[in-house]
């Protein structure tokens, strides 16, 4: 498997650390009800098809990446940096 890191380019999956569903990005506010936190922390879909998950380019640029991929065909549909495009000097 290979992922195209938006910063580093195409890389072997050995450079990446996998970290579960991209739901982790949608952090409820501090005052959110317990149900929202329960969903955020514990409830995950297990789709046969398109899914979004998080990968960390640990042996690379250390970007966290949101990967959109198809669990059936293994097609990688998109790879985006979680923290925005830093190539132009980071988020202003």
């Amino acid at each position, binding site marked *: 498997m290979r992922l195209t890191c938006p910063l580093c380019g195409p890389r072997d999956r*050995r450079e990446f650390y996998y970290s579960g569903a991209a739901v982790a990005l949608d952090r409820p506010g501090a005052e959110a009800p317990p149900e929202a936190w329960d969903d955020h922390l514990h409830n995950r879909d297990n789709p046969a098809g398109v899914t979004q998950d998080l990968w960390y380019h640990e042996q690379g640029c*250390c970007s966290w990446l949101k990967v959109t991929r198809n669990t059936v065909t293994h097609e990688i549909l998109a790879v985006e940096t979680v923290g925005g495009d830093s190539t132009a000097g*980071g988020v202003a």
Partner: protein
Amino acid sequence: MPDLIAKPALGLPPLTHAGTTLAEAALPQITAIAPFPGQSAAVGTALGLTFPAPNCVTEAGEARLVWAGRDLAFLLGKAAPEGLPAAVTDQSDGWVALTLSGPQAVQVLARLVPLDLRDMPRGQAARTALNHLPLVLIAEGEGAFTLLTFRSMARTAWHEIGEAMEKLAARAALTP
């Protein structure tokens, strides 16, 4: 002059197999420069160097700015001025610098690095892995490379590169 004795990571003599040489560079001067959001250009201007794009190295005279990751570059061969709009840390002691050069350097690294290094010109760099070790790889051109890895792992790096060199040398010595 400090009273404490400075030690290199390895202190080993160069290793040569089949015309390809692995050597420990002198204790490097490395400053990690992480520009604050939106400050890359300003950092470059202050340093007299363009802040490098991913996988790139910019140079001016002795000084080089090596892209080393997200929002991060290593300044080599020059001290960083005060007051940069960036987080600045001295990394000189954190890394061992190895040089690998010679006709088999690319093939040696093909045993350990998951990247295509065949046509990597001077001016390019990569954050990647040397087998399981973290690696900042700097292309010096003409099949020569500078390899930065964690200083505590220097012996493992030397061992793994040396083994790859030995195996390739044994292959090269074969007759049909």
